[in-house]
Every structure is written in structure tokens, then in C-alpha cells.
């Protein structure tokens, strides 16, 4: 990484970086601006709102807002379902990855390839059979009905990232701690957990975002506000009157659902540092 780039290469990198940044952040900024436009100014054609208005946020958040019921229940569903799916995925993946990283047992490769196979299977191809099955066994339009398919999305990637991470942990530390006078549990908690925690945090974040962003399962396996998550609910927004587009409300909702993601990343930024295991063993 310490190689010196030529001026030419550096200029190119700068250009590419700016293009990518603008390309990915401009839409977000545009939505942010749109969310502050009143319904009359939505088609003003300007980038900045002519006058800053909180009308859209009132619509989705205040008790009198027309979309408040729809949005808040969806937000509740999204948070609940994503958190539960993430929690289960991380717990299962941690146990699984621990076994894969530390033990030699037959079928280790089979587990990893199966996980990979599941994750590359297109979601669209299984959503229809799942829809029929869920309706027959009563899981349609329930939290559990979404948590299970979300696990199929989050588990494989969690297993893979955690297994890769656990393989780098110097397990000799556990033995060193035991010789130093620790019980097996103390050795695990004081020597291994501090090293494993960043990997688990990172994996949990990735899993959470996958569940949080899902649209296909969300729209296909729900029908009411009992389980419908935010990405699906946005499609059901309506304008204040028949002639109005719900653009402003959708923008405001999009901004609101982005906030937890940003907060999570900022909060756990310090945990997501790589290279914490450096220095445990020989250089």
C-alpha cells in the first residue's frame, strides 16, 4: 500500500473518486432536498426547495398525518424483523464459524459450499413457491414469515465473513490465558472475545442492512400493516388527493429510514477496525 503513485495515476484516481461519490451521493441529496419541498413546489424544477417545509414529515410522522399510520407500523415492522433476523443470524453464524475455524470435522467444505449456494440462488425464483407455502401453513403476513427468508439471505454471508475472521484469531491466546490462571470461560471472555467482537459487529451490521433493504420478500409475503416493512410500504403511499403524487412523502420516508443505518455505522465505526489482532504473535 505504501507504493508511490505517479501524478498521472493520482489525478485519475481523484477523478474516478469524485465521479463515484457524486454518482452515489447526488440521488441521496436530491431526495433529501425533495423531502423538504411542499406539495405545491414539488414540481418547481429547482434543486433546493424554494421554501423549506416540514409538510412531508408531518404527513408521515405526526398523529394527524395521512400516511402516519402506514409509515410508523411499517417502521416498527422493519426494525423488529431486521433486528430479530440479524440477532438469530449472528448467533447461529458465530457458532457455525467457530466450529469451522477451530475444529476438523468431515463435511466442513460441504457446509461452506451449501451456504454459498444458498446465497447465490435468485430470490425471485423462490418467492412464488414460498408465497403458496406460507399461505397454507399460516405464516403469510407475519413477522416470522419474513424472518425465515431473511435468515436465508443473512446466514450465508455471516458464516463466510465470520469464518474468515475467526481463522485469523491466534487461538493459542486461549491456552496462554489458561496457563496464566484463567478458567476456560475466563480465557474465552478475556482473551478471545475482545478479538472476535469487531468481526461479530461487522457481520451483524452487514446482516442488518441486508434485512433492512429487502424489497422482494417484503412486498410478496405481506398484505397488511401486520408485517409489511418500510421498503414495501413506500409503494402504498398515496397523495393527499387523487391528483397529487406522493413524491414528497416517499422522499421524507426514505430519509427517515436512512437515519438508523447512518447512526449504526457511526456508532460502531470504532468496532469495525481491522488489524486488531496484530501483534499477538510473531511479526
Amino acid at each position, binding site marked *: 500500500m505504501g507504493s508511490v503513485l505517479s501524478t498521472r495515476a493520482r489525478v485519475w484516481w481523484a477523478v474516478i473518486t469524485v465521479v463515484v461519490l457524486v454518482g452515489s451521493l447526488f440521488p441521496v441529496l436530491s431526495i433529501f432536498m425533495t423531502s423538504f419541498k411542499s406539495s405545491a413546489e414539488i414540481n418547481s424544477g429547482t434543486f433546493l426547495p424554494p421554501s423549506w417545509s416540514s409538510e412531508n414529515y408531518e404527513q408521515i410522522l405526526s398523529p394527524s398525518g395521512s400516511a402516519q399510520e402506514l409509515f410508523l407500523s411499517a417502521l416498527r415492522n422493519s426494525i423488529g424483523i431486521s433486528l430479530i433476523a440479524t440477532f438469530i443470524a449472528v448467533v447461529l453464524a458465530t457458532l457455525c464459524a467457530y466450529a469451522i475455524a477451530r475444529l476438523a470435522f468431515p463435511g466442513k467444505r460441504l457446509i461452506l459450499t451449501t451456504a454459498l449456494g444458498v446465497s447465490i440462488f435468485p430470490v425471485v425464483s423462490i418467492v412464488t413457491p414460498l408465497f403458496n407455502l406460507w399461505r397454507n401453513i399460516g405464516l403469510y403476513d407475519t413477522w416470522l414469515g419474513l424472518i425465515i427468508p431473511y435468515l436465508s439471505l443473512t446466514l450465508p454471508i455471516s458464516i463466510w465473513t465470520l469464518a474468515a475472521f475467526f481463522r485469523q484469531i491466534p487461538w493459542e491466546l486461549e*491456552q496462554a490465558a489458561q*496457563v*496464566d*490462571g484463567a478458567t476456560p470461560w475466563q480465557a474465552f471472555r*478475556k*482473551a478471545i472475545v475482545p*478479538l472476535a467482537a469487531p468481526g461479530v459487529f461487522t457481520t451483524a451490521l452487514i446482516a442488518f442492512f441486508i434485512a433492512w433493504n429487502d424489497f422482494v420478500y417484503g412486498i410478496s409475503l405481506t398484505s397488511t400493516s401486520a408485517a409489511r416493512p418500510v421498503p414495501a410500504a413506500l409503494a402504498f403511499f398515496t397523495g393527499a388527493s387523487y391528483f397529487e403524487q406522493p413524491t414528497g412523502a416517499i422522499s421524507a420516508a426514505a430519509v427517515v429510514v436512512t437515519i438508523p443505518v447512518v447512526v449504526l455505522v457511526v456508532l460502531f465505526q470504532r468496532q469495525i477496525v481491522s488489524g486488531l489482532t496484530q*501483534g*499477538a*504473535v510473531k511479526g
Partner: protein
Amino acid sequence: MASITLKDIVKRYGDGFLAVDDVSLEIADGEFVILVGPSGSGKSTVLRMIVGLEDITAGELEIDGRRVNEKAPRDRDLAMVFQNYALYPHLTVAENIAFPLRLAKGKHSEQEIRAKVEHAADLLDLREHLDRKPANLSGGQRQRVAMGRAIVRDAKAFLFDEPLSNLDAKLRGQMRTEIARLQRRLGTTTVYVTHDQTEAMTLGDRVAVLRKGVLQQVASPRGLYEQPVNLFVAGFIGTPPMNFLPGRVSGGRIALPFGEFDLPDRVRDVVGERDLVIVGLRPEHFEDARLVDPSKKDRGHTFEAQVDVTEWLGADLYAYVPFEMPDSVKGMLDELDRELDGEGMRTQFVVALDSASRVRDGETTELWFDPTKMMIFDPESSENLTRDPEEAERVERENEEDRRASLERAKKQEARV
């Protein structure tokens, strides 16, 4: 401080592999014992059984006369330094060293811990690094932190598992003397595993040589060097290694690849009826015939040799002389070479000459050797026929006296400081 006793220790793994076979060893209080052997000899397994990281299949392990086979590592009160140091990367140097003290909850006050950590840091010259993380330390510094963690809690014994094998040659030499100094000063029982025979010779009060899980010989470094029990020990101890030559015996004379000589009386008796033996000669028992002291010269024999390669090292000159090996002993010596992690290369013997010698590559020259130092090995059992048990015992007695005296001196010095 404690004595450690191993009684008929056996380790058999789940797949049936016998890693350690019936090892018995008594380690006295304050003694520095080395477990040495080539890779796969079971030396690390023995150490890990002592510390409790490996179950003992059969036999008895006693610390201070009390059986500890079933005790967990934490209840054995031993301190260990791992080959790759095993430092806790999320803790500072000070916290790494304090780790064992903090685990013993309530035993030490915060002040005591700080004092002990600083004392250990001073012993190891780590004072200015106490606040740093292991990732920012050099290999030698990490090694010292690992040692600090071991000495900080006054454990009953120190166990070292190849602690220097990850350091470069110069640092290894420095750390070696450092460990010797520390052990003398603290007077703590120490078991040290290494595959490096130089470390074994320089550090140990006694050295236990292992081969394929079987204990070959336990003796002082000098005992191993002068009175090895068999071919394996003789070939393992000493650099450059001992030369093994085929010798045909007939009528009181022995035919070596470079000539025929009279057998010394001592040797003639032990050879008995055998007509083929393996002769062991250390490189330093040869000399350039032109440089041999005239008073010594008559004691030995001179012979002509075609020198293949020479290495001039300042203090010594190593000359390599190729020779023909009969098939009857070649198989055995090749196998020995493989066991000693060798490559089974050409058959040649090494002589260590005075560095003033002008012998050079490709020359034919006159060499001299001292037949009284010759060792004779049985080609079937590989046993050393010329071993003198009385002399060996005397060496061990002297060694034990020296050890006690030096411990005594260290104690006095400590008291004076």
C-alpha cells in the same frame, strides 16, 4: 519453586499415534532442564503435558511430590512462554504482564500489581514500553513481554516452548544469555524445549534428548558430548556434527576409509568379536599434521586426505573430505541423518583445523587424528561401546556441584544487592 517428576509418561493421540513413549525424568528444584530433539520427537508434547494443555494418557506427573495429572492448567501454578509469544493484542504491555495477577482476584492490591509489573519490566528492560501495544513492538521486545508475563507471578516453574526460534540469529544469541542470567538470578525451576542443540548445550544444567517420543539420554551438556549413549545422541550434539565412519576390525587393527591403524587397548576390548563397527570422531579431534604440537604428535596417527571444500571461519577452518561408504552401514547412517533433519547428502567427513592452516580446496594434505578420543558404535544396536559409565558419573557429579555452587553464588549476589 518446585521439583517436577515425570514417571513413565505416555501420550497416545486419538488416532493411535504414539507421540511420547514412557518418559521418566526428575527435575530438581531450581534446575534448568532442556528437552531437545529433532522435529517430531515429542518434546513439545511433553512440555504441554507438564503445563496441562495436553492430557496424559498414562503415567504420573508430580509437582513437589503431589500428583497433578488431573489438575487444570490454572491450578498447576506454572508459567509458560509460547513459541509465538501469544501476547494479548488488545492490552498494553503493562496489562499483558499484569494479566496473571489480575486473574488472581483479590490477591493483589492495585499498588502491588503496579510494583510487580514495574519490577518485571526493569528486569527485562521494558520500562519505556509499558504503555505500548504489542503490535508496535519488535520481535525481541515481544519476546521479553512474554517472559515478563511469566516471571511476574512467582510461579512454581517456568516452561519455555522454543522461545527463540522466531528471532534472528544475533538477537537469539542475546536472548539466550538473557534467559540464562534471569534463570540464575531467580533460581526458578525451568523446563525449556528446543530443537537447537546450541541452545541446549549453553542453557541447560541437564539436557534430555528425545527421539520419536523415546527418551535417549539425560545428562549434563558435557556428559552428552563426551559420553553419549548411542549414535543418535552423538550425532545430535555438537556442531559441526560428529563424523561417522565405517571401520573394519581384524587382528587388533582397524581399517578406516583413510587408512589402517592400531586399535587402542581400551577400544579393542569393547569391540570384541565384531568385524564391522561405526567409528565416531569429532571434527576437533583432527588437526593439520603440520600444525600439531610435536609432543602430541606421537599419540596420534597421520594420514593423507584429499580435501574437497574448505570453510575458513576466523577461529577455525573446516575441511570436508569425501569417502566411500560400504552399503552395509550406509542404510543405517542415512536413516540417522534423516532423523536428524538432514538431507542425506554425499558421504564426507568434516575436520576442524587450526585457522592458521593453509589447507585449501582440492588439495591433498596430511591430517592428524587422536585415536584415544575415538568412539565405537555397534552397527546393529547403534549403542556406544566405548561409553565409560564411571567417567560419565563423575561428569554428572561435577556438573551437579557446579550447579549448586552457581545457584549459591546467585543467591549471595541477590542478597547483597
